[in-house]
């Protein structure tokens, strides 16, 4: 085959600044305005009907869409390489919207067992009340995903980097399992952001984000994004009546027939956001957009700082082990180098010698690291997962997820790495006196 070369396309860094937006045609505003308006005036009656009937492009009501949110949605979709996105009230709302768009009572999910505690809670305890069951499997056991699939399974789910054990999800292998079984692979890529990994390029079909974390980057908002890759052919699978059968709630519309690659995201907007209503506030979208403008710069620095700190902890006497996929000892090192070549993120965990008491002493001795329940802030953060983010999990589930009593999770910020290391050194000294 002859060599062929496509034309140059817009670079990632440019898209973080420009995708989805142009200077306001009326005012000339360069920044994205905050359209703090519940509703939008219809030019005429026929156009109004057209908007409701998906004949016209535009905005009706800010629960369904909003011009500020639309810039964010388009921008994240561009960065992930998708066809469209929906901004949601939180990462949890994005996750729920993905599931609610595809699953009904009686349906089933196969998920990694190494998940954010809130997601685990949703899948393990809350969704079963609505008839949606989940089987949890080891994220590294590809056959376990395959074997857990039943006739009612609708999707495979995992986090690109497991929380808090940093297991790297084998996207190409899992994508193949999912597609062979006629279902999409849904991936939470919060830890990576599209700067470090674009799951859609590796086999995922749908991506969810907590925009609260690195996307916005400053710990000031709660938000989420649901991104549709447009890659999954819903019409070719018999598992998705919500996509392939007439929808009574929209005049017998068949999404997969009419919307092609936009079928999933259109259904999510026309049903899920409309009916469940977990939309993002436009001011939140504005804040996330501000964060996105510096995403490449921040992620580079997050990763550089993380590597310095991982190196410091990895050889420290008070540390039993460090879980970071770039370390030789990490079982997913090779996979991480393929899927996350620019860095395995800025969140990682380590086991401190002395267990729970040592962990408490360590955390309480820190001054630059903030002890709180979040990640992806510009400021460095620390938490003890077993007693906080994952405290609702049973001892067995904790053990299965690799969360021990002495496990501490760090989210590395943008401070001077020397200052962070000094802070950690002080904490480790105190920990060993506890």
């Amino acid at each position, binding site marked *: *085959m*002859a060599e*062929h*070369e*496509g*034309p*140059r*396309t*817009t670079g990632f860094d*440019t*898209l973080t600044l*420009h*995708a*989805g*937006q*142009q200077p306001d045609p009326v005012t000339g505003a360069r920044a994205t305005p905050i359209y703090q308006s519940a509703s939008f005036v219809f030019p005429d009656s026929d156009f109004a*009907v*057209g908007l409701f*009937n*998906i*004949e*016209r*492009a*535009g*905005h009706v009501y800010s629960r*369904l*869409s*909003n*011009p500020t*949110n*639309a*810039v964010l*949605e*388009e921008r994240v*979709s*561009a960065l992930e*390489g*998708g*066809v*469209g*996105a*929906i*901004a949601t009230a939180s990462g949890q709302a994005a996750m729920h919207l993905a599931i609610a768009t595809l699953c009904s009572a009686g349906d089933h999910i196969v998920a990694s067992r190494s998940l954010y505690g809130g997601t685990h809670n949703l899948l393990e305890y809350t969704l079963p009340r609505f008839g949606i069951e989940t089987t949890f499997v080891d994220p590294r056991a590809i056959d376990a995903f395959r074997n857990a699939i039943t006739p009612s399974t609708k999707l495979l789910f995992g986090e690109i980097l497991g929380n808090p054990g940093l297991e790297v999800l084998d996207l190409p292998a899992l994508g193949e399992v999912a597609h062979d079984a006629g279902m999409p692979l849904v991936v939470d890529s919060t830890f990576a952001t599209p700067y470090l990994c674009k799951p859609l390029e590796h086999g995922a079909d749908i991506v969810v984000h907590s925009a609260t974390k690195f996307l916005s980057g400053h710990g000031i908002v709660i938000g989420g994004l649901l991104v549709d*890759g*447009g*890659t999954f*052919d819903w*019409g070719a699978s018999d598992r998705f009546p919500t996509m392939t059968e007439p929808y009574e709630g929209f*005049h*017998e*519309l*068949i999404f997969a*027939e*009419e*919307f*092609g*690659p*936009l079928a999933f*995201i259109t259904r999510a*907007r026309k049903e899920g956001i409309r009916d469940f209503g977990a939309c993002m506030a436009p001011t939140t979208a504005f804040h996330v957009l501000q964060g996105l403008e510096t995403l490449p710069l921040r992620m580079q620095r997050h990763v550089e700082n993380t590597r310095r700190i991982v190196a410091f902890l990895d050889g420290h006497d008070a540390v039993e082990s460090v879980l970071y996929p770039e370390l030789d000892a990490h079982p997913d090192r090779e996979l991480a180098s393929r899927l996350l070549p620019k860095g395995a993120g800025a969140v990682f965990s380590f086991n401190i010698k002395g267990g729970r008491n040592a962990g408490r002493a360590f955390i309480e001795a820190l001054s630059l690291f903030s002890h709180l329940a979040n990640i992806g802030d510009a400021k460095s953060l620390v938490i003890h997962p077993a007693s906080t983010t994952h405290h609702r999990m049973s001892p067995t589930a904790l053990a299965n997820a690799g969360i021990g009593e002495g496990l501490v999770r760090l989210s590395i910020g943008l401070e001077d790495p020397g200052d962070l290391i000094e802070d950690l050194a002080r904490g480790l000294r105190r920990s060993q006196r506890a």
Partner: protein
Amino acid sequence: MYVDVNAERVFVSTGASRHQPDAPAIVFVHGAGMDHSVWVMLSRYFARHGFNASAIDLPGHGRSQGEPLNTIDAMGDWLADVVDVLGFDKSIIVGHSMGSLVAHRFAVTHLDRCRAIALLGTSVPMPVTEALMMAAADNHHAAIEMINTWSHSSQGKVGANNNPGVWMMGIGERLLERAGRGVLHADLEACNSYSGVSQEIVCPSLVIAAGADLMTPARAGLEVAKALPQTDIVNLEDCGHFMLSERPNEVLSAVATFVRGL
């Protein structure tokens, strides 16, 4: 819905409405490597406004069976078979890019079945650059990248779509990726070899040109318009070839205004 045409299943998107006896017919024909979904807004609009709207998948495209047809002439004749099966006496044919050539050909050879044509992003002839043709012949992704990049305006390449949350470059790429092996090349060959004569067309026509169209430059569309006997012309400034995603409202308004004036 599906209909059987020449013993093969053909998909026809009807704007979520059932066709009605005696309603006027409007048929939409997609471009190279595309499918009916590019017309979703227009087909829904015309269905609601009393038309038998039919956005078809050409053979081998989207949900239609069969091999792609190798010439525009064959596509025009096939379209005549489709409107026969659908029971349409006279139809308005709306085509984009390669679809505009199909509409053009239909108006030349099936003038008694053609009420009007709307040609979006058109050029007669429609030459295809060698680099694109060669990449398409090899089913190489570069062909998709060329079409997708050259089909968007400068602004279109970074978005700002008024269809909320939709990333135009992503849709263009995914649609083209869905085309089966060989489909894009067959379509481009058909475009490249078409040489219809516009002066033979007698029905009313609309030409929508796009100012930033690198695939079918606006001046080429305006040349087509000049050769047509009864033509309305709409020029979308700063818009790329994929006008249905870059300017869906303006395209719909232009077609609706034209159809109302018939």
